[in-house]
């Protein structure tokens, strides 16, 4: 009855895929095919601009997940968490896809003029964009993007490879060193993610001001990262691995993190909204005005309900977080909502001046949005799945693994 001292032995647990399986290869092929088809054929009379809009959306969605998992790894080290060791390798591998994402960012840099109006400002924008030129200039933009991926690749691959080295050596000093490194790494992470949010998304509306924008995206990153991590843990268990190591206690904690970041996202989103609403300054409110006119108000409403109200009410209790089935629904739901959130951030048009009611028009969903998410997502999954197959699915000689295996919520 008592579970005290009755933890499982990790070395008796299936914790390694025998081989990569065809899944990764198929995902990669489908991914390449979808992206190529989208780029070459441009269905539905799309132009390069439409393709790049859809590509940016899909790319940011995958990048969010990877960055979210990188944060997960860093924060577990910095707080010296014991509970999370059994799922940390999965997060390390998802974050470890950063070299692929560095490769996939190249189209955005190459076709940046299709996306970012500040590179080719209209007369209305010129005056303000000129003032922002010290930051918003072509050279610095490219340097920044390169810097982000240098930092993220260094962090994610560094923490992953150190963890893999520990699998071989069992050296507890690695854990100590990673814990020390995690704190400065988090500072680097916070700065780069904040500025990346500005460069990738806020720069789509160069006339706009919001100082909290980076935190807003960060909240979405962690939310989708942990949601995806929970799904990968379920997938790994579904294939017969770590079946006893990952328990409902661990899922419960992943659920708590998701719930916390649902609320945190709302807190940040409302903080941004309320200040702009209260001050009522035209160059700030136009961003929201566009998102409340035409059909866009429906997207705003769905976000309010779906990104906050519904998950808040349904998942505040501990029971749905402790059941795999309901947690699966929660994870899929937050991923969908994060995608919609990115759509809401990136897709609406810059406000024409003067903004006429309804001028924002309908919601420009496009077939390319689906093709791009299949494409980028397929490549991402191919990387993650094959990386998972190459190594143990758990940091098997981490000194805190035993605590993680015995972990229990009260």
């Amino acid at each position, binding site marked *: *009855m008592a579970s*005290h001292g009755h933890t499982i032995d990790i070395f008796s647990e299936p914790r390694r895929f025998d081989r990569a399986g065809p899944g990764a290869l198929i995902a990669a092929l489908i991914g390449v095919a979808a992206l190529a088809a989208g780029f070459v054929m441009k269905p539905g009379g799309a132009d390069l601009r439409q393709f790049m809009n859809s590509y940016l959306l899909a790319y940011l969605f995958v990048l969010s997940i990877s960055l979210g998992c990188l944060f997960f790894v860093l924060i577990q080290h910095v707080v010296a968490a014991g509970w999370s060791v059994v799922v940390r390798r999965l997060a390390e591998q998802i974050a470890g896809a950063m070299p692929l994402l560095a490769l996939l960012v190249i189209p955005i840099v190459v076709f940046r003029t299709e996306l970012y109006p500040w590179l080719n400002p209209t007369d209305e924008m010129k005056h303000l964009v000129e003032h922002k030129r010290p930051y918003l200039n072509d050279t610095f933009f490219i340097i920044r993007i390169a810097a982000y991926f240098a930092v993220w690749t260094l962090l994610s691959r560094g923490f992953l490879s150190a963890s893999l080295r520990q699998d071989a050596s069992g050296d507890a000093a690695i854990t100590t060193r990673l814990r020390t490194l995690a704190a400065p790494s988090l500072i680097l992470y916070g700065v780069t993610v904040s500025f990346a949010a500005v460069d990738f998304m806020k720069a789509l509306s160069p006339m706009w001001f919001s100082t909290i924008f980076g935190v807003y995206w960060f909240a979405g990153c962690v939310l989708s990262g942990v949601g995806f991590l929970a799904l990968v843990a379920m997938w790994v268990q579904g294939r017969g691995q770590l079946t006893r190591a990952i328990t409902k206690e661990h899922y419960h904690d992943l659920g708590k993190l998701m719930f916390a970041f649902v609320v945190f996202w709302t807190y940040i989103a*409302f903080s941004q909204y309320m200040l702009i609403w209260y001050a009522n300054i035209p160059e700030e409110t136009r961003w929201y005005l566009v998102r409340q006119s035409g059909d866009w108000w429906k997207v705003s409403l769905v976000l309010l309900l779906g990104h906050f109200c519904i998950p808040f009410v349904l998942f505040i209790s501990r029971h749905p977080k402790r059941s795999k089935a309901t947690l699966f629904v929660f994870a899929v739901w937050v991923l969908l909502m994060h995608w919609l959130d990115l759509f809401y951030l990136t897709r609406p048009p810059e406000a024409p001046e003067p903004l006429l009611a309804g001028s924002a028009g309908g919601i420009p969903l496009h077939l390319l949005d689906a093709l791009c998410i299949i494409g980028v997502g397929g490549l991402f999954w191919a990387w993650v799945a094959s990386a998972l197959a190459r190594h143990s699915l758990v940091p098997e000689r981490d000194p805190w693994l035993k605590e993680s295996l015995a972990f229990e919520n*009260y």
Partner: protein
Amino acid sequence: MSASTVTKKSAATAGPATAPHSLVAEFASADALVRACEQVRNAGYTRWDAHSPYPVHGIDRAIGIRATRLPVLIFLCGATGTTIGILLQWWTNAVNAGVEFPWVPTFLQGYNFIISGKPYWSFPANIPVIFELTILLSAFGAFFGMLALNGLPQHYNPLLRVDRFRRVTDDRFFISIAMDDPKYGSATRRLLEGAGAAAVEVADDVKESAPPRWFLRAHVILACFLLIPLAVIAYMRVDKQTQPRIHIVQDMDNQERYTAGKQMANPVFADGRSARPKVAGTLAREDFTQDPHYFQGRIGDQWAVGIPMYHPELQKLAGGAAEVNEQLMRRGRDRYAIFCSHCHGLDGAGVGRVATYTTEREIGFVPPKSYVDPDVLVRPVGHLFNTITNGIRTMAPHGDQIPVADRWAIVAYVKALQRAQTATLEDVPTDERSRMTQPK
């Protein structure tokens, strides 16, 4: 150990009287504790507990502790906070209680404030307060609820009278079963010993005890000290102060400034003037001459005699009507009560609270004239409007405080006041006149 217990019991005659309170069993390991707990639980005891130096996995189930009710309590507290947050803001700012709920005493009424031009009830502005109150009350619920459900603070625990029990914070594990447990009996000791207890002892509790003398005295003295602030406040209420009050938060209230009276040159400006001339190309409020009827109450060089009901802002106050109607009058009465009545009185006789007080105390203060003063009665509405806007004699200008349309609504209401107090029988509708003339 048992010998020392005996010694203690025999010595009890000297100290306060004691009675057995509970049975304490010591265990050497956490595993032994968990196994023993399962046996005690299965035996059906209810008033008992396990004690350990650190959290033990599985102890909750072994004791059979039911899930805590704390989350429910926190939820209820949080929901209360949400409700209070909503009601508080609705009542204090979104309700014109003086009009909508006139039976509510004044000190309980809220007040419609326009803040940043937002509606009285605007949800985005209300959310932070609702949120904070929800969090505050949830935190109170969690903190105090946890203390209450655990029976804390507990300054004294009879178990600590057992010397052996003190190792519970170090390296020993204990089960205590209270003797008022309905299951308690001679079998209890056997159960604990059978469950692997290393030792079983009786914990005594003092039957009754009074707190020491110094404790009571200290409280009396402390209570006396607590009365000092109350005494000071009471004294200040009746004492006459000749010095200005201590001005702790300055808020730039007493800063150096250039005034006309000082006749000083201001070094900041080249021409030495601190009151700046108008910036070229700008227009002061009073110089705004477009539509002089509406904005200044003038037509040509004459005071206007009609209320400019053609103006859309004024029509908005009248509910869309292009004539003076009851809605506009109500608006006027409302604004009059806020901006005018403190001096002019609710009836316009010029004996409002502030006017009376100031007339008594301030030399040079010209009290307001009654609205039915013959001079005032003949003034055209444009003149009244101008007086509200720019002030007259000691009356301050109110143009900055009252929007134009509201000033006209007040004018309309002032005219109604005049009319009401100079009415003759002819003003009463014919079918009502008989009621006025008939003796009772």
